[in-house]
């Protein structure tokens, strides 16, 4: 089945029926927020059943919106966590992407500021590389971006989308070798983004990220992971009880080809490795289970079909 990422918004009343429906159709619920009387579900659902869900949700005044960033984890890299960059623009961008369904983590560099003195340490590099995509929020001057960006991108293997003050063409000119995405006109600013043209800029960031991730998805589709990450999440949710005691908003974060499980590595890595998915296939056979550099979490990297010759 072809699963597509969507967001469902509706009332609390009878929302469990929608959840059951999505699960019965073979979809997965990635995250559920209950905000007072409102429920927001981020889910992957079969493409051909979207109309059916919309029809059933209509009497409940629920709506279903395609949101291409659901099921991805994105690093928003800000040059520092000082007042110069927080809360605007870093939080504005991170929050806006989050509203579009992605799980965002903000990575505040210890020494990202400055032109000559900017640095990226190994921990920052590894944390960024654990994500599906990194959004770099740079400053207003092209001279600085040109000089510091080669240092900041060193060792980064995930796709990069750059946001900076100069226009898009300038960014494309000064960045060599090219990165996957560019958004110009969104550098350092100190006011809240609330005017329509500023919101359009944020929309542009989302569009650019979506474009880059769609390209990634196409690549992945050529050699798909041995199990869908959302399905593996379900397996862990069913078989590992302790995951329900984790207080994070997403105890299991779904990525495009993996999962971040927020349980201590030392205790749970072995348990996860031996989990049976289906027909005697265990998680250990189709995925690498490695310690994450974020706290003591576990990172599951699902191997592609070409490596395992198993598809469950």
């Amino acid at each position, binding site marked *: 089945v072809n699963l597509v990422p969507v967001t469902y918004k509706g009332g609390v009343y009878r929302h469990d029926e929608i959840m059951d429906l999505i699960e019965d159709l073979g979809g997965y619920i990635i995250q559920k927020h209950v905000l007072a009387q409102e429920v927001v579900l981020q889910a992957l659902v079969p493409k051909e059943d979207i109309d059916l869900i919309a029809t059933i949700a209509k009497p409940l005044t629920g709506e279903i919106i395609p949101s291409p960033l659901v099921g991805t984890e994105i690093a928003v890299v800000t040059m520092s966590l000082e007042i110069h960059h927080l809360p605007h623009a870093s939080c504005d961008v991170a929050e806006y992407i989050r509203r579009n369904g992605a799980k965002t983590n903000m990575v505040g560099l210890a020494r990202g500021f*400055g032109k000559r*003195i900017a640095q990226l340490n190994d921990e920052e590099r590894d944390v960024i590389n654990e994500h599906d995509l990194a959004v770099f929020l740079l400053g*207003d*001057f092209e001279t600085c971006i040109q000089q510091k960006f080669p240092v900041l991108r060193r060792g980064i293997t995930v796709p990069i989308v750059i946001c900076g003050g100069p226009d898009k063409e300038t960014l494309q000119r000064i960045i060599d070798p090219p990165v996957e995405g560019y958004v110009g006109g969104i550098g*350092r*600013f100190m006011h809240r983004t609330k005017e329509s043209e500023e919101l359009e800029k944020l929309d542009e960031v989302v569009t650019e990220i979506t474009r880059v991730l769609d390209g990634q998805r196409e690549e992945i589709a050529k050699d798909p992971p041995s199990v869908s990450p959302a399905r593996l999440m379900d397996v862990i949710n069913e078989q590992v009880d302790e995951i329900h005691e984790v207080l994070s908003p997403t105890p299991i974060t779904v990525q495009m080809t993996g999962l971040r499980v927020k349980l201590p590595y030392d205790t749970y890595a072995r348990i996860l490795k031996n989990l049976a998915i289906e027909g005697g296939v265990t998680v250990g056979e189709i995925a690498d289970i490695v310690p994450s550099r974020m706290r003591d979490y576990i990172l599951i990297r699902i191997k592609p079909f070409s490596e395992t010759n198993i598809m469950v």
Partner: protein
Amino acid sequence: MDAVEYFEVECPEKAGGEYYQRIADVVLLDHNLIRVIRKLHIFIDPRIPLFIATGVTRKLPGIVHIRDFADVSVQEQKVILSIGDEAYLAPLLKILWEKYGKERVEQPDRFTIVIRIEGAELKEIEDVPVYDPTESLYKDLIYALQVIQPEGFKVRRQYYGKEKFYLVASENTLPENIEEIVREKFALMGESL
């Protein structure tokens, strides 16, 4: 920034300069400093790199003396101060303790201070300076300029006084002729340091 007589951002990169114009505007507004500033010239050159902010303030409120916020009555054995504005009480007490000793300064209630001294002059007590608002204002101003400047510029030099102020910042050692450059920037506003 309409209330400011002169406000310019000078920058070799046009787009960058425009962004910094907005940043300076927002920061000064957020820190409630717009009405304090009369002229402001900001120079940024990311190539050197160098950041210079020079400015002139409006006429600032003067030093607060005891007579401005308290009634003094001198008696034979003691002096009684009736406080009108509590805002300056803490610095006042500190000064009195230092001058007369804690054992002589009593505070029977929030608005009264009794100093047990003999033969004090009314004028002498009334004219004690308590608080200089310009000091904290200039500090706020310099802090705001540090928020405006690009973050990586860690080498700084600042000056304030006589209604003028400047902040120079860079990533590298400041050029030797920096004072000269600052004077030039003041000259652009029609002022001299």
